[in-house]
């Protein structure tokens, strides 16, 4: 059967196999990098109606997270401050600052400031802030060093594997309850596991690992 396949085609199957292997590896690596929340969510930083700086309020002024996010210890929702809470200070501090105009408008009209939501759990996930905060999971673990942010951004992937990492090994993350809001608190990494295990034991903490723990 001469003539149909020239001699160079002998090399072809090997080339095709090698090409497919490389393409397969590239697709797998590409999917793993670009199609997971580590890429799709982390770094999301929309421009907010008011250029609010956590760094100024927490780092410089030393305010507690709970002053604004008052529901965080009681509710699934940490809560956003309404304008009156801001105006407790800002009716004197920077009272006429144009950057605060939306807050003053909100105060007068009652319509909330149109903050853009950054951290959004899907509707099939049941997440309760208080359940985590009151067991020694710090704000830090999901929100990063939000106390130092000039503008809030999506800092952690908040993917299911992110949640499960802690649910499977809570001792690596738990802290004493009085350090939950102290985002700069540094524990000795060597002691963290031991201390965390103790905290998990004394608090009788068994984070759910079954599907229905979070997908109710």
């Amino acid at each position, binding site marked *: 059967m001469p003539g149909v396949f020239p001699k160079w085609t002998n090399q072809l199957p090997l080339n095709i196999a090698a090409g497919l292997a490389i393409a397969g590896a590239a697709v797998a690596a590409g999917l793993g990098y670009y199609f997971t929340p580590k890429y799709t969510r982390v770094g999301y930083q929309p421009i907010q109606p008011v250029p609010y700086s956590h760094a100024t309020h927490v780092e410089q002024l030393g305010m507690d997270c709970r002053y604004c996010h008052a529901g965080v210890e009681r509710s699934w929702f940490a809560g956003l401050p309404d304008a009156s809470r801001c105006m407790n200070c800002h009716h004197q501090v920077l009272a006429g600052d144009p950057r605060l105009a939306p807050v003053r408008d909100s105060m007068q009209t009652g319509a909330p400031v149109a903050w853009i939501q950054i951290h959004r759990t899907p509707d099939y996930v049941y997440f309760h802030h208080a359940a985590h905060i009151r067991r020694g999971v710090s704000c830090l673990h999901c929100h990063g060093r939000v106390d130092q942010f000039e503008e809030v951004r999506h800092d952690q*992937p908040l*993917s299911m594997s992110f949640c499960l*990492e802690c649910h499977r090994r809570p001792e690596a993350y738990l802290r004493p309850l009085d350090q939950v809001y102290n985002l700069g608190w540094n524990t000795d990494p060597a002691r963290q596991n031991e201390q965390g295990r103790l905290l998990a034991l004394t608090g009788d903490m068994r984070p759910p690992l079954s599907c229905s723990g979070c997908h109710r």
Partner: protein
Amino acid sequence: MAALRSQPLVAPDPPAELARPPLILNRRGTAWISGKVSGIAEGRAPRWWWAAFLPSAGLTALCFAMIAYLVSTGIGVWGLDCTVGWAWDITNFVFWIGIGHAGTLISAILFLLRQPWRTSISRAAEAMTLFAVICAAIFPVIHLGRPWDCWWLFPIPNANAIWPQFRSPLTWDVFAISTYFVVSLMFWYVGMIPDLATLRDRARTRARKLVYGLLAMGWTGSIRHWRHYEKACLLLAGLSTPLVLSVHSIVSFDFAASLLPGWHTTIFPPYFVAGAIFSGMAMVLTLLIPIRTLCGLEDVITVLHIDRMGKVLLAAGSMVGYAYAIEWFTARYSGSPHEIFAWENRAFGPYAWAYWTMLACNAISPQLLWLRRVRRSMAAVFLLSIAVNVGMWLERFVIIVTSLHRDFLPSSWSYFRPTLVDIGTLAGSLGLFLTLFLLFIRFLPMIAMAEIKGAAARSGARAHGDPDPPGGLSG
């Protein structure tokens, strides 16, 4: 020495009563075989092929239409309810996967057991296996409700950090069936390479030369090629043999590992394997009896072959009948009111019609095959094979639906009624199966030419002077 040399070293012919019956009739030789079998895949398609292909292709279109409707609308288009959560979908799945067992049995187990009569039917049976597994694979995916998530069945690393439940037989199923498909495909393809080379060498058009040349992967028929080929076939046969037993055992675990009376039985794995071989052999007969006449292959797929497949059918059918009896015995002997109820509800409940039809088709009708006259009558074996196909589909229906429809809470008892979509999907899967098989006949060597030439040599084939018969399917 000179005296010894003068004696010709020829073994004496065995006495007539010890001679093996010929596997290829009319002393057909290699040229006739190549011409006949390749001729089916060459030339214009005959009328009967189109008459079979067009309705099958229509049914295939129906299958895809039904699936599209199901996926776009939801599982509710089937007749399922809260009580009967599995019905025709899983029935069809087990039915098709069972049919897929004949190919491997014939090509692997009969190969290792050195049964040369398998060569005439092995290729078609292997092809049928692949097409049946393809039909089977559709159902578990479309019954998911969210079939686009079907990749979750495989252990692929993902951002959810979750894996399939490795303790569940449903996960083992995924591995069992995908392994089975891959090994069967390799066995089928590797076995076909010498025959594809024959088609390539006979090709007249450039397109055929290219396609068959690609598929034949440069086969020249050298001794080296044959050595590798024989080794590969032996290894693949060794790999496939345990699969014949494991795949349907694991399918049966889907039921047996549950706690439902009627499913929770240790007899299920061997019972399912026997049933799978039974239904697969029946489907081979259903396909090959008409095809041997339509393609003029009576000298290759002889009455002897049908006779022997009839014996396998009889043996497997008797095992299935025995399993039915043991099911009844186990239920009574257990003393468990739930087990007894499950069996009595099967035999005398609302689905008694299905149970007794199944029993008549699967356990009683094959007993006719004890008679040599029945085994050698093509019409009788064909009708019996149809009965077995119907019976084996009903068996899966009976196992699945009668165990589910009356659960522990009488207020939730129900009676499954298929919708038009259920019926259309089953008919469509049959169409897909036939379409694939007809395409196979039309474009690939449907008889293992290279292998039956060995059987032909033992059947007193004429070496030369046997002209090629005219090509074409009608021959």
